[in-house]
């Protein structure tokens, strides 16, 4: 009820960031899209880190180890580090327009890497992770109905909370920008 919905929420937020970066690059001079991309990645990173922590806890009790050398786990860690690189990149460039364009391009690549590392690659390699490497996820064996009653509301609930956090972060960033312009 925590781990999977948190990753879904991260995907949603990184998707919002991906769209914002495309709009930033498509001749738009508005800084709003850049702020949207930054806010979505910041909040998405929080959900990604929580996803790693909850996954590690699950692994400890299911597999007996906090971390195992598994393509899904390693891919998740690399993805979070790639997005950490996005935030570091933004912090190292002072010119606002250059920062917006550079980070938008980086964000496009980061999202493609997310898709490849988390959704494509683990399906073609041996993996212990449920739903990957031939292991059953939610499809091969039906998710128990009592779990469905909690799982789907959890996905929607975490996504709504993630969007709320994103909007608060975006509003704070926009306000901060206005203050700097004064």
């Amino acid at each position, binding site marked *: *009820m925590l781990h999977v919905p948190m990753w879904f929420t991260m995907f949603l937020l990184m998707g919002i960031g991906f769209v914002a970066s495309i709009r930033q690059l498509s001749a738009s001079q508005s800084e709003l899209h850049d702020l949207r991309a930054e806010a979505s990645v910041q909040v998405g990173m929080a959900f990604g880190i929580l996803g790693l922590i909850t996954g590690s806890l699950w692994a400890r009790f299911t597999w007996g180890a906090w971390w195992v050398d598994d393509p899904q786990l390693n891919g998740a860690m690399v993805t979070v580090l790639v997005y950490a690189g996005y935030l570091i990149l933004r912090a190292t460039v002072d010119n606002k327009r250059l920062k917006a364009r550079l980070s938008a391009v980086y964000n496009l690549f980061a999202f493609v890497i997310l898709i490849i590392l988390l959704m494509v690659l683990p399906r073609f390699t*041996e993996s*212990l992770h*449920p739903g990957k490497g*031939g*292991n*059953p996820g939610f499809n091969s*064996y039906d998710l*128990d109905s*009592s779990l469905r*009653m*909690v799982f789907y*509301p*959890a996905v*929607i*609930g*975490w*996504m*709504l*909370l993630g969007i*709320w956090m994103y909007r608060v972060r975006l509003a704070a960033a926009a306000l901060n920008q206005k203050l700097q312009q004064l």
Partner: protein
Amino acid sequence: MIQNSWKIGGLALLAYVISMCFLVPLGPGLLEFQDAQSAGVVAELERKVSVYRLVGLNTHWDEQPESLHVYLKHKSSLVELPVIEVNDATHANVGLVLPDTIPSKSWDVFTSHPSDGTLLLENGLFTEGFVIDKEATWPSPEVT
């Protein structure tokens, strides 16, 4: 108020999820399928037979113990394991003879019992030290 209804809805869903996690009683399930030696069970069987201890949760294996059936499954490979002993409602020992070459490292464990229905422990058996050949058939076709 209406503009913020989706926020309230999100919080309400999460409150529902958290409360359901604590309120819904757990049905029967499988917890562990572990080597009997690591489980502290002394096995006195033929050398080639490994004894595994199956641990359930809220199961009723002591009712009609002869009706407990245990299976290993990987894709189309399905093998029934002999139940050696049902210790109590939640503990049973089963025998397992693995060939040298098997199609996968990980196997799903299924149980069938009149009181508990069919239960599944995904990747319940994870083997090491065997030759993995995806084309290998176990059990052999003539046995099945």
